[in-house]
């Protein structure tokens, strides 16, 4: 909670905060004048001076207009405080999402950032109003009769302090309630989306329990919040009602000391119209918006960019690849995906990796490209572990094209030259020709055409990503099922283009036909591996024979899954 509050306080930049405070001054006037006007008006009416009384009330309306001018400015300055805070949150969410890949970030961007924006503004405003009211009432009471102020203000402040103490108790309960809410939504979403599956497995009781738990948790959280609400009522009794009763009790004594009827009424007016609503609002705002602000901001700050481990190695000598006893697992208690893998890929080689889906081929690509660090054993690229080389430097040595091709909304040319921003037109044209994307470029309307990923088929996006990789300065190319949405003929053309491009080519194969084009093939099977050329593997690897058997061209296996 401390972190969120500090963040909020730091967001109060000096100049706008100062302006906000200054413009609050005219806003204080009507609050301060309220009781004074009522007091003098009443006394004048009592004395039979009707027009003086009316004049005091007119003065009240006049100061209200002045206050309105102040309010107008205050809201404007509030924007100067809140908008930079929102900007910073958007930056954090976007930066964090790009570094962690958290899909929930988009929802966070739209909902949570707005919640923090609104609650922060609300808090600044309510606290300011509270301060203005308190200050105004104090000024008014003191100018009216300091004695009355001495009876009214202390109990009010005690009540306020007590309600601040209650706030701490409320925080955990509000959090529990919000969490139960979210769990209820998740569990019921899962259950209602899976009614068919629940019926098919006879899991009705299980599902009822699954949703039942958050339902009960929610009810318990509400009941426990009621206790906080009761405490708040008691705080209000101290801060809002006690001043009134004390003033009434002291009434005869005050009148005896020369306090007028109007002044007494003015004092009551300050309590009922000034202090009570202010206390009520600030207690509500702190208890509701305040806690929502803390909790939501906490979520955003938690999901911000992770600490990046330094990558100290700066020199890569060539691009020979060596794997020595390479083992990788996704968690300490998880089975290894790759175990004790030994492999050397010389500069200029063409290697194809095959195996059933989910066997660890993409994990291997990630390790080779320095995106993952081995659990044990070593990966050496150009003599150094790639996971210790800065990514920007690594990008000059290897390029990874994943299955899900990335195309961003923008000119086609910018998409092509993403990895080589100063590529010439002729270089790009040559790459487009080589990979077989000329027809696509023509269809889209040339290099200058704007593309949107949603308008392209998966295969077209892959072609664009292939042109980009072809243009990359890196000598080692890793295609991780990067051609899976192309037809077999287009895939052949692209792979052959990369083989002829020079440098090393590693293809994580989607179709077995890719293997037939390579000199060496790595077969991954569970956490075992076999390596060799086509004839050797046909002899020695049952899995390779099986893969080959099912993937005969013309068989029904090449059909897309339906």
């Amino acid at each position: 909670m401390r972190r969120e509050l500090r963040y909020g306080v730091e967001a109060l930049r000096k100049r706008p905060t100062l302006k906000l405070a200054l413009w609050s001054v005219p806003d204080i006037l009507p609050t301060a004048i309220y009781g004074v006007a009522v007091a003098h008006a009443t006394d004048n009416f009592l004395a039979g001076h009707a027009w003086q009384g009316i004049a005091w009330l007119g003065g009240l309306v006049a100061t209200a207009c002045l206050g309105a001018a102040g309010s107008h400015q205050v809201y404007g300055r509030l924007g100067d405080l809140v908008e930079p805070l929102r900007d910073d949150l958007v930056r954090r969410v976007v930066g964090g999402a790009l570094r962690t890949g958290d899909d929930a970030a988009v929802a966070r961007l739209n909902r949570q950032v707005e919640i923090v924006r609104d609650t922060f503004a609300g808090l600044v405003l309510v606290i300011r109003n509270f301060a203005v009211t308190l200050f105004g009432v104090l000024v008014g009471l003191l100018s009216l009769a300091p004695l009355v102020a001495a009876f009214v203000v202390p109990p009010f402040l005690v009540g306020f302090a007590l309600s601040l103490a209650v706030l701490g108790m409320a925080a955990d309960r509000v959090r529990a309630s919000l969490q139960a809410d979210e769990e209820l939504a998740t569990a019921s979403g899962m259950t209602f989306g899976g009614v068919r599956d629940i019926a098919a497995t006879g899991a009705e009781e299980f599902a009822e329990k699954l949703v039942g738990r958050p339902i009960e948790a929610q009810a318990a959280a509400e009941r426990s919040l009621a206790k906080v609400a009761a405490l708040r009522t008691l705080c209000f009794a101290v801060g809002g009602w006690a001043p009134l009763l004390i003033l009434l009790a002291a009434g005869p004594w005050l009148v005896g000391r020369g306090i007028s009827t109007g002044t007494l009424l003015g004092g009551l007016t300050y309590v009922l119209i000034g202090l009570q609503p202010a206390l009520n609002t600030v207690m509500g705002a702190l208890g509701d918006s305040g806690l929502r602000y803390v909790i939501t901001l906490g979520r955003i700050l938690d999901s911000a960019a992770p600490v990046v481990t330094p990558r100290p190695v700066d020199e890569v000598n060539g691009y020979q690849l060596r794997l020595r006893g390479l083992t990788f697992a996704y968690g300490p208690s998880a089975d290894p995906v790759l175990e004790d893998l030994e492999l050397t890929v010389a500069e200029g080689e063409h290697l194809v990796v095959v195996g059933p889906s989910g066997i660890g081929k993409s994990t291997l690509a990630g390790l080779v490209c320095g995106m993952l660090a081995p659990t044990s054993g070593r990966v050496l690229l150009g003599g150094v572990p790639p996971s210790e080389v800065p990514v920007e430097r690594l990008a000059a040595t290897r390029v990874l094209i994943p299955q899900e091709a990335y195309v961003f909304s923008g000119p086609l040319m910018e998409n092509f030259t993403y990895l080589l921003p100063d590529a010439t037109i002729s270089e790009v044209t040559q790459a487009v020709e080589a990979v077989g994307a000329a027809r696509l470029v023509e269809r889209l309307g040339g290099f200058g055409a704007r593309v949107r990923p949603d308008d392209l088929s998966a295969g077209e996006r892959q072609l664009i990503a292939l042109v980009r990789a072809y243009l990359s300065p890196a000598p080692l190319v890793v295609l991780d099922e990067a051609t899976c949405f192309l037809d077999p003929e287009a895939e052949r053309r692209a792979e052959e283009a990369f083989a002829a491009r020079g440098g090393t080519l590693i293809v994580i194969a989607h179709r077995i036909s890719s293997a037939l084009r390579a000199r060496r093939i790595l077969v991954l099977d569970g956490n075992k591996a076999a390596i060799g050329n086509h004839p050797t593997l046909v002899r020695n690897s049952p899995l390779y024979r099986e893969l080959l058997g099912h993937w005969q061209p013309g068989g029904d296996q090449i059909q897309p899954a339906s």
Partner: protein
Amino acid sequence: MTALTFGTVARHGRGWLPLIGLTAMVSSAVTLALPSVLGHSVDAIVAGADYGRWFTIAAALIVTGIICSLIDTFAGTACVAGTTAWLRHRLVGQVVRGGPEGSREFDTGDLVSRVSGNTSDAAQAGPAAVTTVAAMAPPIGSLVLLAVIDPWLAVAFFGGVILVVGVLFVFARRTAEISLAYQETQGRISALLTESLTGLRTIASAGTTAREERRILGFLPELHKHGLETWKVLARSGAQAAIVGPLVLVAVLAVGGLQLVDGRITAGELFAASQYAVLGAGLGGLTGVIGEIARARAGVQRAAEVFAIDSVVHGTLPLPPGPGRLTFDGVTVATADAVLLENVHLELPGGATVAVVGPSGAGKSVLASLAARLRDPSVGQVLLDGVPLPAISRQALRTAVGCAFERPTLVGTTVGDAISHDAVGPVRTLAAARATHAHDFVSRLPDGYFTPLPKAPMSGGERQRLGLARAWPAQRLLVLDDATSSLDTATEMQISKTLTEDRHRRTRLIVTHRTATAARADLVVWLDVGRVRAVGPHQELWQDASYREVFG
């Protein structure tokens, strides 16, 4: 089952309602009485007589108000929380027990919002009903009391209200456009972020994260600009509120003051009048009270629609011993606007592997869901070993019949949960997971079978393997509705080998698009637009050119 109405929901909290109603009435009475009592107290102070009595009354009123508010907090929460939980349990049960056909017309998100949002609105039915009158009392009563003190005060009050309306009219401006522009810019930033997130692997490997960040945040200054606009709009309404606030009060005080000068009212009455003016201004809030009832009514209505889902009725019979013979006896499935299956007669021998093939829309999945009793035929019946499916007890049916889907939805907290809910033990879960090759990837998850489902991102093929593992323990009939379509061929091959060599000799009904699967089956049921076109071994049917066309 009786339908769910406003009355039934309200009655559920009946233990609390008298208390809630009573405290609301007392609170309103206190609110109305207090300004007068305070006024009299002041008059008594000034007159120097009878002061003790009025002060005691004022103190008693305030304490009573506080006690009422405390009781109301607890009683109201207890009533609403209890009713909400009760409604939620009932609705969840209704959806779950209604089977897939029962909730077909509802979207998942819609059901979630009914259960999480509408139920808590509906639960307000009881308290709203008993407190409405009490809530209306202060604003209406204070206007009456204002008129009782002096009719001119009521006139002044309405004069003030007219002034307020006038000011609001002058300030009225269109504000919708500005917030729309803000949201559009926000949407643009989200869209760019979504786009970049799909290419995250490319971006991370190319080291272009900072460049992407700059590109996405390029819209931020525009958002900032629109954001400032929204504050300008608020500034206007803030200024407006500052002027409007005291208008009614000042009007009443001015008129009251003149009456005071004439000696028609006392200073205390003037004070009471000013307080009644403030309370009377709460008249606008009355729409809120009526709104609460309307919201409760709407919530009950939305809950009632879910409440009306019919539960699937299961029989009480156990299943006699048998090989798993599946019979479709004159089965027709019709919806309001289409006939999905028409007069299907099939006698499928126990222990056989039966493939169901046909073009899309032929009724393959409908046939599969009938076999697993995920829906009932409109005409005819489906029998397992001679017993009609609706006669079998739910437990016996689900132990005997398992069903796996093309897109399984996994239900549970962990991956292990999703395979087996009823804690039959890790041995059976493991056996099923091994047989369906789900174990291969589950064992590599960070916490294996204990990995929480949201933390285990899975491909379509991996989900299908879990779905198969879930259905695997079925003892007599295994229905696979295109349940291996996303598997790579090597894995699919291994699983069908396990299926063919099934030690338990269960009957297998397999909806498929693949020739190889049909070729390995003992029998193929060929469906076409809701009718059985032919039944026979694949090799025989293959002679027919239109059968070959089914496989493309």
